[in-house]
């Protein structure tokens, strides 16, 4: 379980996160939704310690993570898989080397075992015959999928995905969403996914929090989200015409 307690984060005068508290349970896909610029990425980075929140605590299974030093954090990071919004693949390494990287850092597997794991993960995200290509030689959607493969390579206990399916076609998006849900439930992972895709919310949103201008406005399941009377959340959920039509019929 991961818990955030009263997290606030500023950049200069700009208050990006304002007193956010939330608990993310294991074995569930926890979604963070909110419009562009609402602070989702910053929040995720506070959770994994890439940003230091000025106030509040990040707690991983009873350990106060954001107060630890680098080497103590590293022990927890061994159990973290993170998929960045832009992929963050290493440009100078091939697809295969990218996924080998966390395995080299965190495991004592033999080279053959690592290679097996790489191919297994690439298979799960539907990438074949791209092992020796460089990130500049694959498409944007493929980069995202390789990034997810890299994040799941070390069999993480905590999985973070920053907009895993933005930029993917609807079919692949569903494959990725379901893959995240599957491994979460299968391996009992605490998974946190940033998204602004309502499809994902309906498909896999076991728990959803809604962030608006850096504040947590709402928390619930994907079924409750359609019946909420929170004004800002309604505007977000029913932003497009199709959704508005659907609501009318309800």
């Amino acid at each position, binding site marked *: 379980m991961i818990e955030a307690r009263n997290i606030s984060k500023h950049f200069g005068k700009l208050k990006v996160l304002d007193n956010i508290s939330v608990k993310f349970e294991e074995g569930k896909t926890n979604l963070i939704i909110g419009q562009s610029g609402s602070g989702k990425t910053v929040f995720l980075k506070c959770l994994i310690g890439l940003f230091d929140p000025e106030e509040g605590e990040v707690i991983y299974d009873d350990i106060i993570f954001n107060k630890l030093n680098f080497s103590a954090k590293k022990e927890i*990071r061994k159990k973290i898989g993170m998929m960045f919004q832009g992929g963050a693949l290493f440009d100078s390494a091939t697809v295969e080397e990218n996924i080998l990287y966390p395995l080299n850092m*965190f495991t004592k597997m033999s080279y053959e075992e690592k290679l097996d794991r790489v191919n297994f993960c690439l298979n799960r995200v539907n990438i074949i015959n791209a092992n020796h290509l460089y990130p500049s030689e694959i498409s944007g959607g493929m980069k995202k999928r390789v990034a997810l493969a890299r994040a799941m390579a070390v069999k993480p206990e905590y999985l973070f995905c920053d907009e895993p399916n933005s930029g993917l076609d609807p079919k692949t998006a569903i494959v990725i969403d379901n893959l995240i849900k599957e491994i979460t439930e299968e391996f009992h992972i605490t998974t946190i996914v940033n998204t602004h895709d309502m499809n994902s919310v309906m498909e896999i949103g076991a728990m959803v929090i809604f962030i608006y201008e850096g504040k947590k406005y709402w928390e619930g399941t994907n079924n409750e989200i359609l019946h909420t009377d929170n004004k800002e959340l309604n505007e977000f959920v029913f932003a497009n015409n199709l959704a508005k039509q659907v609501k009318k019929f309800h």
Partner: protein
Amino acid sequence: MNVFFHIGRYFMLLFKVFAKPEKKKVYYKQFMIEIQNIGINSIGIVVIISTFIGAVITLQTAYNTENPFLPKYLIGLGCRDSLILEFSSTMIALILAGKVGSSIASELGTMRVTEQIDALEIMGVNSASFLILPKILAAVIFNPLLTMISISVGVFGGWLAVLATGVVSSEDFIYGIQYAFIPFYITYAMIKTVFFAFIITSVSSYHGYFVSGGSLEVGKSSTRAVVYSSIVILLFNVILTQLLLS
């Protein structure tokens, strides 16, 4: 922003860079890559520039010392000492600040804005040390060789100019480049080179590592890397010269 902020952050970065490396094997591989990028790939430019500068120094010394009372060997001696004392250490360092510094800053800057540095941190890597230490070591170890190459090739360029123009006889020139040779000058050049190599790689890394924003900022950081490395080199040139030669 104020100077002290940058100086403080620069030394804090160095502190992180020189933390004890964990996975030595990965560092070794990275080090060899940097030897190639920073060292071997600079040989070409050093050879070309040094040859021409050696030739020009020789011709200028020759045309400025046409007084018949001055001994002819002064031309070779002047060429040799200008190269050792100033050109092959300081000027080459400034040129490398342009070539190596800008590429270091843009490489690290791009890694920063595309979150590759964040990804390294998440994988438990001390990104500062992993990315910057091999660069510093490669330059500090390889640049003295570049300086030696520059001195040798420069003198050779001077000799070619002598052959081509006949401003002085080949014998006089060769006598001159051996005349009153002070071995400490080589030590002085090497000390400067090592300092400058450290400055180029660390200052440029600093500018790249702390980029925030997008490709525009990466571009700016690479310009700043060159400007600040050059300024710091010039400053240390004065300081080291006063300390070593006075």
